[in-house]
């Protein structure tokens, strides 16, 4: 099966309205397996809304979303997670009254892994993310950057993970932790073939990390391509400068 012919994520004519405001306007997008796709755009362009729509947090008003050929729009978020899609939140949502290790276990347990297996995998991941020392700390004691890191590695506990959506993973994060995050994304992408969509404002990081970039503006995709192509696209320049 040629991965070029079957996109992992296929979004067709997606529309989302909030009252009178059209947040997502007829967006079509597809992501190939193994890609790292950047999703950028000025503030308010609808990036987080897109993620919420794809992962089932919001109901779509029109269009369709296919994940690996299966139609997923309208499904509950936990079902979509079960199919292998995970996401992080712009403001870290970790389980504050649970320890770092317990946080890690959750996505594995929901995918029917045994406690023992889950603990093993968690410890490996925590080691890789340099968080082992904190594993029995309640997550509320972590700094902002550590929280984001925890959020991100937690997603990898899902054994079915195929597509990972990261919403502003680098925002306000310490350089060292940012390095760990980048390392992790690259490693997971190269070794395990996990596909990523990364939303971020940090254009240099996106350029370094992503194969292709989609630009969102006022709920529409106005450009797509490599960073050079997109950066030189007059529509994009206009969007960022004109607002």
């Amino acid at each position, binding site marked *: 099966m040629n991965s070029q012919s079957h996109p992992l994520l296929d979004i067709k004519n997606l529309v989302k309205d909030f009252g009178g405001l059209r947040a997502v306007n007829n967006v079509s997008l597809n992501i190939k397996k193994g890609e790292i796709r950047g999703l950028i755009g000025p503030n308010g362009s609808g990036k987080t809304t897109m993620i919420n729509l794809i992962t089932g947090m919001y109901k779509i008003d029109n269009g369709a979303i296919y994940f690996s050929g299966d139609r997923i729009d309208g499904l509950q*978020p936990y079902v979509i997670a079960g199919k292998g899609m995970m996401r992080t939140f712009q403001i870290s*949502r970790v389980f504050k009254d649970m320890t770092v290790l*317990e946080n890690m276990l*959750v996505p594995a347990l929901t995918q029917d892994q045994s406690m023992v297996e889950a603990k093993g995998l968690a410890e490996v991941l925590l080691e890789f993310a340099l968080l082992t*020392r904190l594993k029995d700390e309640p997550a509320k004691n972590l700094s902002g950057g*550590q929280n984001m890191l925890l959020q991100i590695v937690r997603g990898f506990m899902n054994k079915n993970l195929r597509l990972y959506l990261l919403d502003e993973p680098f925002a306000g994060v310490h350089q060292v932790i940012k390095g760990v995050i980048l390392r992790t994304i690259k490693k997971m992408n190269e070794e395990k073939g996990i596909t990523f969509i990364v939303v971020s404002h940090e254009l240099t990081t996106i350029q370094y990390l992503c194969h292709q970039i989609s630009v969102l503006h006022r709920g529409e995709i106005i450009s797509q391509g490599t960073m050079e192509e997109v950066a030189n696209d007059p529509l994009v320049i206009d969007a960022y400068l004109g607002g």
Partner: protein
Amino acid sequence: MPRLRLNYSGPLLFLLIAILLPLFLTDYWIYALTITFYYVIMAITWNLLGGYTGQFSLSHHTFAVIGSYTSALLIAKAGLPLWMGMASSWIFNAFISVLLGILCLRMRGIYLALTTWAFAEIVKTYIRMDFEFTGGDRGLKTPLFFKTMNPLPYYYLFLAFAVLTIIVIAIIMRSRIGYYLRTIRNDEVAAQAMGVNTVRWKVFAFMVASVFASIAGTLYGHFIGLISPVSGEFYEMSLIIIFVVIGGMRSQAGPVVGAISVRFLAEVLKKWPEIRMVILASVVILIMRFFNGGVMECLRQGYQRIRQRKGRNPVSGFQKLEPTQRHRGNNE
């Protein structure tokens, strides 16, 4: 979840004491302890719902009341034998609790509290109003479980059921279900994103808590011999909350400790019923304001501090760890 690492010897010791205690006590105290066990059950099960899953239900006592009335009415009006009356009541309760659970699914904290409060008031008011059927304010006589007024067999019955409840809840909380419930309380949206079927587990928590409450209620009804809508008053619910808050809302031993110690205090202060409540209410407020975890949390913190002083626990649980500290860490 940070909790006091009691190995099994602690609880077993308490169990042993509880089993032997009646030998040394008057009937009055045996009776009082039996009632205490009832409250232990109510406290622990409410904690499952409110403390762990974060569903702050104000109708827990109502399920005990529904349990006792259903059983008593089935026996009295439909002529069912005792066992069948009780068992049917539990099944009925399971059904109602699932309905209520589903109704409350979309509700967060405050709405849930209001809705369950309304449910509690409705049931209580109905029992009072329909006095031809339920006996209203006069109460309803119920057949006794053991055909005797001696509290001793009831003591062991309630003790056994309390132990059973504690074990069941402990098993649930240590299993993956426990994880799911805790994530629901912490952050329901994130829980969904991590694959937790929040709908199913919220209703599950509701059902388990309420069924156990109804069992406790039926046992209570067939122990006291007379049930009345007073048990459905908000006061009963606030007692449960007081027990759990004072004992410690997020520990397994907390509600037990809370129920027992507060009941004991209440018995001691029996002569001054209002001051008793004023003191208890003030303690609750103080605890919420300053010692959020209740008695068990205090003990745990004290325990940790002692361990720290002995040098066994270099990383205190309560400092924020900044990225710079990581370089000085000893595990890298």
